[in-house]
């Protein structure tokens, strides 16, 4: 332990917190994996469901979205999808956009767009569920 403290410039407190230079630790990594695992069954369910109703009219679609189990799964699908997508696009922006101003603007735009679309889509699902 004494040898370690000589070699490392990090304080013991910084090391035990484990948050790194971005002050975020593994939160981004963990959230991306957690949503990925959730999206495997949700995506397969959604694709099979909409494929099985190909060419549906509005009444059929509204009835399907509004049925209780489907409403719950769709809200989860939309939330996990947009959360996962903005985490992934964030990494791509951080890798390829090098100007600090452009990078910051792009990150803010993507995060705001993801939240806006997620909320709008979830509200749409809930309106069909509760007949608003």
């Amino acid at each position, binding site marked *: 332990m004494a040898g370690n403290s000589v070699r490392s410039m990090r304080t013991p407190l910084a090391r035990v917190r484990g948050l790194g230079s971005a002050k975020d630790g593994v939160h981004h990594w963990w959230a991306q994996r957690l949503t990925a695992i959730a999206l495997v069954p949700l995506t397969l369910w959604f694709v099979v469901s909409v*494929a099985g109703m190909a*060419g549906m*009219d509005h009444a059929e679609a509204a009835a399907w979205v509004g049925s209780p189990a489907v409403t719950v799964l769709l809200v989860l699908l939309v939330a996990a999808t947009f959360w996962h997508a903005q985490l992934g696009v964030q990494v791509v922006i951080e890798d390829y956009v090098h100007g600090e101003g452009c990078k910051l603007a792009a990150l803010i735009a993507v995060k705001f767009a993801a939240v806006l679309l997620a909320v709008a889509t979830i509200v749409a*699902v809930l309106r069909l569920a509760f007949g608003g």
Partner: protein
Amino acid sequence: MSVDRRPLSPHLQVYKPQLTSVLSISHRITGVALAVGTLLLAWWLIAAAAGPDAFAVVQGFLGSWLGYLILFGFSYALMYHLCNGIRHLFWDAGYGFELETVYKSGWATVIASAALTVIAWAIAIVSA
């Protein structure tokens, strides 16, 4: 001490494309494409909530040749990103790093994503 003389890796212009590198960049490309594709999911559900007229516009667009082209690309990108994502989760857990395993799981991803796409469209064609 010139920093800009440092070797860069890999030199994409002269580097031979391999299954591993092609699948890796494909994961990122499909990820970005799917992020754009979420607009379609949002449009579809918001239109359904807005009413029959708005919903008919979306369904009309999806039923056009451009709509089918987008849906086909969307479905393959989704299945590819899903299968390769599972491959990534195994790597995250510390499994499958041997060169032979990496290639096996790579080909499995290619075959499984194609098969899942065909299955999804077969279900759609039978149901329509």
